[in-house]
């Protein structure tokens, strides 16, 4: 049980001086047209992304061990990217003409790390009450709230996730006080003055839901429904029935979100710990005509790996959290490995501003636990737990999460095996732009909040 909370550099992006967008300025918005978000009265999606990739150099990473994020591994590989996109990936003979060559000997390359479950920005540091913007805990159903309206882009946590965790994309979710907590937002981990400047172009929205202890505790404690697990389900089911009846004639923010879910355009990310409860939620989804994309926290997912596979639902999990609440009592280290054994989808998530800096290590712990019970999962597949699988469950798997030609050049060069505690990101590119370099003290973001404070620009 963590008791810690109780007691417990460099210029803002050297690139800011470059006014030209250059040839690297091509955005990844091509696929945004594939998805139609619920729109405003003017027919446009509100709060549109203004993110533009920063300029990058055509870069060849040569001689490293490359994990492509989809289970592929190339020893002594070459990764080429230019104009913000992966150009090619292969073995040593690949031509690097026209590329800046970076020697990756002894090093490793993976896709950018992706965290499917973060509250950076909506529960930023310093974690003072004035910053507590993650739970609209005034009603058990708040599908009308959007996490992006709470995100503080100056949260120093984004910078740590980039520099220490190699995180290039992340989903910011509302908290779990509510049965239906509102829309999530997917961000590029690139510092910006505005949240729109971080929004991942073309990423679908998610909707946060929560079952179990939190909603019934929060609202039962206020003398309101729900105060029980059966109350949780009753409130949820009625919400879906009401949403199904929505005719769209009069704008209703909450119903628009729920309609987006029923239409399959908004992905459900459901906080849920217990196996029996996940099984009930999957049946509720069938009854009401929506799909759960991922159960988050899912400490008991290992008990129903078969059901999760059959229902095509991912489990976004920690490696070793357990015991902090009743519904986390049965957490075991083998959760990920047992899911993998059943062919179910595994995503390693953080839900934590510190944990997001070590998703690779969490995955390695879960891998080792599997090995001890005879489930050997290759390193290349384990890397997928915090890259491609996360991207897929966030609906951005066709744009990022793996090193494949044409996809966003979101890339981490690690100074060693990413599944070792002794390795760190050495360089991190987002859309082909170098956003962090451990070897260049100025190539790290420092939030407005940290300017002039003790340790400004420190390695952190």
């Amino acid at each position, binding site marked *: 049980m963590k008791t810690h909370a109780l007691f417990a550099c460099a210029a803002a992006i050297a690139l800011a001086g470059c006014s030209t967008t250059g040839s690297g300025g091509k955005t990844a918005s091509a696929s945004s047209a594939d998805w139609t978000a619920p729109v405003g009265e003017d027919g446009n999606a509100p709060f549109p992304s203004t993110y533009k990739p920063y300029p990058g150099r055509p870069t060849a990473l040569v001689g490293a061990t490359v994990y492509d994020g989809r289970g592929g591994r190339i020893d002594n590989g070459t990764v080429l990217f230019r104009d913000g996109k992966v150009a090619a990936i292969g073995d040593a003979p690949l031509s690097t003409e026209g590329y800046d060559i970076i020697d990756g000997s002894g090093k490793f390359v993976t896709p950018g790390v992706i965290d499917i479950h973060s509250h950076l920005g909506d529960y930023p540091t*310093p974690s003072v009450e004035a910053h507590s913007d993650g739970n609209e805990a005034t009603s058990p159903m708040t599908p009308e709230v959007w996490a992006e309206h709470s995100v503080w882009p100056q949260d*120093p946590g984004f910078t740590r996730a980039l520099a220490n965790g190699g995180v290039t994309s992340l989903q910011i979710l509302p908290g779990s006080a509510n049965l239906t907590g509102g829309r999530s937002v997917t961000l590029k981990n690139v510092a910006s003055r505005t949240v729109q400047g971080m929004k991942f172009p073309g990423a679908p929205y998610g909707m946060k839901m929560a079952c179990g202890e939190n909603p019934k505790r929060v609202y039962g404690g206020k003398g309101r429904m729900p105060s029980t697990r059966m109350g949780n389900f009753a409130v949820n089911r009625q919400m879906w029935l009401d949403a199904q009846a929505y005719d769209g004639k009069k704008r209703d923010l909450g119903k628009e979100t729920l309609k987006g879910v029923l239409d399959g355009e908004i992905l459900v990310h459901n906080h849920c710990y217990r196996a029996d409860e996940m099984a009930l939620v999957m049946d509720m989804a069938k009854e009401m005509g929506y799909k759960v994309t991922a159960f988050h926290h899912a400490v008991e997912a290992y008990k129903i790996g078969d059901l999760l596979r059959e229902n095509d639902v991912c489990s976004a999990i920690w490696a*070793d*959290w*357990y015991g902090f609440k009743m519904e986390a009592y*049965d957490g075991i280290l083998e959760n990920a490995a047992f899911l993998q054994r059943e062919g179910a989808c595994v995503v390693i998530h953080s839900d934590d501003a510190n944990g997001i800096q070590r998703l690779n290590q969490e995955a390695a712990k879960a891998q080792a636990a599997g090995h001890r019970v005879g489930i050997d999962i290759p390193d290349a597949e384990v890397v997928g737990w915090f890259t491609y699988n996360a991207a897929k469950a966030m609906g951005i798997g066709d744009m990022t999460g793996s090193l494949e030609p044409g996809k966003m050049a979101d890339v981490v060069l690690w100074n060693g095996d990413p599944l070792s505690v*002794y*390795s760190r990101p050495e360089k991190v590119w987002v859309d082909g732009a170098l956003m962090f370099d451990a070897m260049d003290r100025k190539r790290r973001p420092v939030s407005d909040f*940290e300017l002039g404070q*003790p340790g400004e620009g420190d390695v952190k």
Partner: protein
Amino acid sequence: MKRALTIAASLVALASTAPAMAQDVAITNATVATGDGSEPIEGATVIVRGGKVVAAGAGVAVPAGVQVMDGSGAWVTPGLFATVTSLGLWDVGAVSESNDTRAGDSPFSAALDVAPIVNPSSQHILVHRSAGITRAATVTLPSGSIFGGQGAMIDLGADPDAVNRPRAFQIVALGEYGGRLAGGSRAATHALLRNALREAGSYGEDARIPGRSTRGDIRTGDDMPIDPRMTGRDTDRADDVLLTRFDAAALVPVVRGEQPLYVYVERASDIRSTLALTREFPKLDLVLVGASEGWLVASEIAAAGVPVIADGLDDLPQNFEELGSTQSNIGRMVKAGVRVAINAAAMENPRNLNQYAGNLVALTRIPGADGLSWGQAFAAISSVPAAISGMGGKAGVLAPGAMGDLVIWDGDPLEVGSVPVKVFIDGVEQPLDSHQSRLRERYRDLDLSDLPKAYDW
């Protein structure tokens, strides 16, 4: 009910039919880390006899009659020492009736003593034993007052005697958290602390309560007896007091320097103010806990000779007293000559201690960062916390005469994923099972063809 009790009693009897005995054992051909800050030794031998370490290192001959285990491919280390923890004090964090870590509604604070309430059968003790932690400091958290109470040193052995040293230290929160507890300001923490220490310093004389400390008589270093005044009946004390008689009595050994005072403090200026306390109370035996901005005042901490139980990987401005936090904090303090243990409270669970130590090693490869060598990092979770806990040379090290706490690992113990394959405490091989291992065995498959999973045990 009576019948149930009888059954329970017979189960206990059954469980204790195989008395745990200290074994004489030698492990050879292993990679041995002694915990003293030195680097691991390959092809080394560790010998434990009569519950104590006899020898550890290369070129050690195994005496006749000692059972030999081949440690090829394995690592052998002393048991990890976790400080500060709440091990044995709770079952489920959010289930308040199972959680004894806070007593905010109690009239007592400094007098709170965990010694009688540590549960050696706690699942967290079982889980952490199987993670290679053999000893720990455990304590209630400051909640009703800036004083958290008296912590104990425990072992994680599978026996009823968890508490090695009761009342081993007192804990107090200063800084932001202490300020909230004291009434809303850091100024209130300092007034409260000084008042409390002065009351304790004059306790007995002013209040004319009979009795005196027995510390002069019993100074074994292994025990912290109850001050006899806590057993007195005279409650007639001066009017101007803020502490209960028990709380004041509990602080007597603190003000006399007989019981270390652990101070939760983060900000550089708060650390300085804490160090300055010894000008007024010269005998205080201070230990800093947290100390996220310790690196900014590292030379002053070193000069004061005060050890630190530091948050290992904090690098966010979690609040305004941690603006300067960095993962390089520990590396920089150690470089300045401070004795630093990694704080087991500043992570999800104490079983992440070795991962945190490994991360500090990783920092040595990052320009501008300060980390620890492997040996230093391992010491920060073994010998250093043991020494801070008053068990220097006895726990957290593989040295002749040290307690026979051994862990045999399946790989580099600082690497993520390495786990113990055998754990010995005082030379006794420990069971490594728990609720978690039982669940693991039950769900090795999802085969329900014959019977429900409930029959699989």
